[in-house]
């Protein structure tokens, strides 16, 4: 009897998820981002593509970390020949660095608008286009209504959107599927080697629709994400002579 009830509840939950636009994963889509346990926090245990992710950057250092993390996520989305639009008003991302995260910079088209209004318009137009694999937009303000418009655009086209928010004072509720904050962490070179190690970030999943939030430490190593467990995380704070 109890088992039957559980089944019914989970079935109903599945239906609700379907109505909300979360389809059950097809085979082969699990862990394609290499995020491991982080992907398990999302609904159905799959990193949601065809949705909008929001990243909070309050300092240029955070923006750099988010830029790297987003570039790492773009790699499996773009695959062989997909293209990405990077829209913003004051773009500082250095295209050459994208190559380090596995994204060929010549397949990213940068749109440098002058007005914030144009950024949102361009983002919506780009998200509506299903021939664009991903859209990255740098915006400071995003109202609930604006985020809804973007959400409606991606629901039709299944393009993935990344919104990089750079104004901490203009935070508001949005319809984005996940809200992230990526901050840099001290790197830990292997075997106590001198110098700076692989990029390491504190990945906070602050809000997630139909999933569980959490905090993880992630490293970008050998062209893929690598979760850092606490035991490994022993950084030695010594100044090393280099050169």
């Amino acid at each position, binding site marked *: 009897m109890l088992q039957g009830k559980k089944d019914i509840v989970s079935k109903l939950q599945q239906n609700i998820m379907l109505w909300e636009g979360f389809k059950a994963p097809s085979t082969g889509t699990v862990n394609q981002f290499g995020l491991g346990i982080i992907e398990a926090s999302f609904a159905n245990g799959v990193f949601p593509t065809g949705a909008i992710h929001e990243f909070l950057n309050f300092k240029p250092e955070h923006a750099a970390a988010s830029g790297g993390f987003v570039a790492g996520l773009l790699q499996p989305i773009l695959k062989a020949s997909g293209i990405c639009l990077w829209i913003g008003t004051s773009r500082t991302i250095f295209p050459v*660095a994208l190559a380090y995260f596995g994204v060929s910079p010549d397949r990213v088209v940068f749109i440098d608008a002058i007005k914030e209004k144009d950024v949102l318009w361009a983002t919506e137009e780009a998200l509506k286009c299903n021939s664009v694999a991903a859209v990255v937009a740098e915006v400071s303000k995003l109202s609930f209504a604006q985020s809804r418009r973007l959400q409606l655009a991606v629901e039709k086209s299944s393009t993935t959107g990344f919104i990089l928010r750079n104004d901490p004072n203009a935070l508001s509720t949005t319809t984005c599927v996940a809200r992230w904050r990526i901050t840099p962490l001290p790197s830990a070179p292997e075997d106590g080697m001198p*110098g700076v190690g692989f990029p390491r970030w504190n990945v906070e999943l602050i809000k997630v629709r139909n999933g569980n939030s959490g905090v993880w430490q992630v490293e970008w190593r050998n062209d893929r994400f690598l979760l850092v467990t606490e035991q490994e995380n022993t950084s030695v704070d010594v100044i090393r002579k280099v050169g």
Partner: protein
Amino acid sequence: MQKRYMALWFCHLKTDWLTIRKPELAETPFVFSFPVHNRNLLTAVSPKAEAQGLYKGMRVADAKAMVLDLKVFKDKANRDINLLNAIGEWSIRYTPFVAIDAPDGLLLDISGCTHLWDGERTYYKEVVNRFLNKGYTVRAAIADTIGAAWAVARFAQAHPIVTSGQQVKAILPLPPAALRLETAILERLDKLGFRTIKSLTAIPVSSLRRRFGEQLTLRLKQATGEASEYLHPLQPVEAYAERLPCLEPILTRVGIELAIRYLLQALCKWLAKEGKGIRAASLKCFRIDGHIQQTDIGTNQATYQVEHLFKLFELKIGDIEPGLGIELFTLEVTKVDDVETTQEAIWADKQALQNTIVIQLLDRLAGKIGAQAIHRYLPQEHHWPERSIKKAENFEAKPATAWRTDQLRPTILLPRPELVEVSAPIPDYPPMLFRYQGTVHHIKRADGPERIEREWWLDEGEHRDYYIVEDQHGQRYWIFRLGHYGQRRHQWFLHGFFA
């Protein structure tokens, strides 16, 4: 088709122009003067003044001595060219191909135009009478070649219309001046007793060339039609353009949309037939109050897709102010290109830059935000960070070299390196700490230096020694020292942020 040309000669261009504006001058002799080398010389002489023996190039003082009631007007530089431009543009009603023949003539390519006026004779009468009624003394001639028309208009006494193929016969009795030659050659010909072109034809061409230079033989050939000659049209002939006159003035958005659609359909049908596509087009809306509203669009790839082009215009319809109404729409293609009609592969990757849907999206973005806002980068073989990328000129361009991943580059690169304060610098090592925007960063880890020399063939200055540094919070920066350590004033800069 046999080419036919009409030469117009305005014998008293400037004085006629002034007489039209001031009819009272018709009965008085007057001249235009312009200072040349500190002397005032006559640049134009009215018919009345000419009858009293004045001529162009005469001194004003002499002219005043000869004709007591002479009126002298100041001339302006380029007045004749401006006048001819205006008259030439007006004459486009007779042929689309009008060229200026400085200083006092126009040349019209009338091939295929005269039948609209029932033949050359009525065409000729219409043109000449129009100018005469307006007040311009004009002499005109029609011939197979530009040279013959020019000569007959200026020097022949009768038969201004030279029948096709008869131009040689027409020019033979004319003086050598009818060949558009330099004064020096004309003087020599005159001295040697060549009074007509006929006398020249008796001399072998090689001798003529030896004695008088290439110009004489070329002009002779051009007049007879043996050598070709080209005109520079006043207004280049619009290759692809459509017009839509409206019976009732258009005021509404729906009306403008219909007009644009109609024009695009006609134009695209035409372009598609020739395998061409629009790269840039401009829509002109002529309002009934005389204003012209212009809207321009551009595309990233040549296209003749009506729907796509319409969408580009649709974004800009809001800027068109119909005012009291639009009576005429014209759509001109300002830039055409060949359309690549490659067959689309069924299994081709949908998400590629060559995809027309993506191109259409970028066109729309360019239409609203501006084409200068769209950038795509390709690698460039330079170590200097600012020069390691270049803007791609089009969306088909592929990187000539692979993107380099062996050298770490920051995720965020500041457009200009920013000066930072450092303390405790040690030679060949990064500083112990640096201060950027008021915050002190203690350097815990560092990589480097990576010395990047300035490319002396491009610019001058000191080299940079780059370090990747990590502060106490794990934030990674790209800083560099300009020049060698220990130089009089070495400076440290922050150039980027690593992920």
